[in-house]
């Protein structure tokens, strides 16, 4: 049974289609793997009965030759996606009894295409965090450990549960969301592949909102091909989200193996940070060589406003969050804590319901939007955002097809190791990924090597708007050269 969990999504799909394997067997193997891996805390809700029923329905469709593109494939769903009749909490106490009466567009498209739901994965509360340590359900342990050591490491965040579930082979892929790096940073930390598509590629309808101008859903998977297969089903127009574009969804899998010869790859000099570990510099160099060997042309480029992306993000994202999270008032859904009057009820509910990081961000957001401070903070940050986007546009206008950067400034770190005294220490994790959200561009993180302690490291490719296909083609080149990084079970 265990070997079924080592299949990639594409391999499992092909075997299901050839009837060499049933979804019932495949799903049972994953359900059992999830049970054995509870110490990782990757799932906040397991749905084995639903998984079994969905798998049986898939097998019936496969038998009739009617299977969809993901027919019978067991997936894990980040707990930020509303799932009808299945508790959805955003890993916040304020929503810990919330059972949606509707299904998010992205997950409904996965079920439309035949996928099977294994359960809901852990994440930082309201997706605010880079280590999965802010979850109301507690931290996730990475399936990776430093060579010869037992200290628990973070899987990254906010999609830490999805990353750990994929890396520990508890599912064939998982949904995730990315507001400042929440798909790509955990992918890099766990040796998995994660793509944040262009803003507007996937519908945000039914996804618990954090910062609406930055949030975007995407897949986390074992391979670049698997991510391409999943994104094909997740993406697409949706009348229920006015920011979701009416563009047809390409057959992303067809980009796997496509030649990258002649593509111009920008190497932004601002991504070389002082004090960056030599190992990060080394895999970046290695990545450049791999792409060059595959026929791509490397060009040095400059994105001069890079260093301002993170501070601008920490104005824009909290501002939008403070507005989005105003809905948690103890009236229509979620937690209610009584107070002496209605304001007292709001204040008591939100004090009890929000964790420390969420409270911090809502307060910062409230402050930067408040009378007298709006122009100095929020308006200035939105102008800086225009400049960040312009930097990218100028490079693309000069014929650059994509850019190659490190995904994170370090490998994974220990649980409890960062951000205790100064919240900004944790924020710096997203220094290479946040620019992409600020500019609305697609970005993919692909495993590219390991550090001296055996922990995976990732590279990031940044693409032109709605050119995810080029990222898949380039990502495949890196994956073919670097090989896959699979955590050895200890749990």
């Amino acid at each position, binding site marked *: 049974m265990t070997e079924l969990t080592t299949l990639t999504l594409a391999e499992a799909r092909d075997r299901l289609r050839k009837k060499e394997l049933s979804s019932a067997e495949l799903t049972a193997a994953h359900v059992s793997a999830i049970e054995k891996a509870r110490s990782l805390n990757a799932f906040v809700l397991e749905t084995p009965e639903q998984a079994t029923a969905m798998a049986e329905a898939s097998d019936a469709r496969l038998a009739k030759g009617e299977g969809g593109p993901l027919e019978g494939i067991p997936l894990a769903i980040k707990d930020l996606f509303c799932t009808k009749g299945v508790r959805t909490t955003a890993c916040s106490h304020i929503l810990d009894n919330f*059972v949606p*009466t*509707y299904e998010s567009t992205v997950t409904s498209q996965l079920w439309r295409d035949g996928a099977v739901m294994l359960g809901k994965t852990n994440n930082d509360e309201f997706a605010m965090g880079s280590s999965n340590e802010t979850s109301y359900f507690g931290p996730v342990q990475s399936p990776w450990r430093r060579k010869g050591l037992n200290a628990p490491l973070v899987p990254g965040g906010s999609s830490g549960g999805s990353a750990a579930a994929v890396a520990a082979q508890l599912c064939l892929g998982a949904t995730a969301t990315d507001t400042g790096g929440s798909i790509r940073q955990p992918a890099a930390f766990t040796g998995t592949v994660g793509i944040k598509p262009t*803003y*507007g590629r996937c519908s945000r309808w039914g996804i618990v909102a954090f910062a609406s101008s*930055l949030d975007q859903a995407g897949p986390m998977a074992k391979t670049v091909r698997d991510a391409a297969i999943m994104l094909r089903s997740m993406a697409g127009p949706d*009348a229920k989200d*006015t920011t979701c*574009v009416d563009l047809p969804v390409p057959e992303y899998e067809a980009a796997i193996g496509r030649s990258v010869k002649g593509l111009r790859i920008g190497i932004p000099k601002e991504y070389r940070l002082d004090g960056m570990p030599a190992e990060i510099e080394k895999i970046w160099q290695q990545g450049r060589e791999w792409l060059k060997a595959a026929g791509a042309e490397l060009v040095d480029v400059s994105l001069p*406003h890079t*260093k*301002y992306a993170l*501070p*601008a993000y*920490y*104005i824009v994202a909290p501002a939008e969050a*403070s507005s989005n999270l105003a809905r948690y*008032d*103890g*009236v229509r*859904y*979620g*937690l*209610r804590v*009584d*107070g002496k*009057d*209605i304001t*007292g*009820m709001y*204040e008591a509910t*939100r*004090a009890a319901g*929000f964790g420390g990081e969420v*409270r*911090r961000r*809502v*307060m*910062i957001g*409230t*402050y930067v939007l*408040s009378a007298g*401070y709006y122009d*100095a*903070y929020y308006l*200035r*940050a*939105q*102008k*800086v*955002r*225009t*400049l960040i*986007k312009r930097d990218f546009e100028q490079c693309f206008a000069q014929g650059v097809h994509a850019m190659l950067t490190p995904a994170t400034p370090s490998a994974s770190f220990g649980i409890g190791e960062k951000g205790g005294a*100064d*919240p*900004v220490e944790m*924020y710096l994790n997203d220094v290479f990924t946040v620019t992409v959200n600020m*500019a*609305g561009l697609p970005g993919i993180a692909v495993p590219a090597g390991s550090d001296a302690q055996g922990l995976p490291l990732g590279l990031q490719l940044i693409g032109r708007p709605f050119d995810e296909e080029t990222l898949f083609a380039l990502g495949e080149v890196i994956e073919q050269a670097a090989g896959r990084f699979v955590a050895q079970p200890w749990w």
Partner: protein
Amino acid sequence: MSVDASTVRRIARLARIAVAEDEVDHLRGELNAILAFVEQLGEVNVEGVEPMTSVTPMAMKTRKDVVTDGGDPEAVMANAPKSEDDFYLVPKVIE
């Protein structure tokens, strides 16, 4: 810019989050750490730069002004912490 204790209390009130008196000092430190970090945006010349309003150039979609959903009070009320006859119950707001 940095915030003092009375500003922390004012922000908490605006955000409708109860903050105990013994948490104010700690929160002040955290908020000031973030504000110190974003201070560097002051270096950027934003003269004549338009603030971003939409990250991808797109025209707002419109649709016919017709009812597309609704008529399901049970689904709407399903998660209400306190309700009666399909109304949400809240503490008295009008004397």
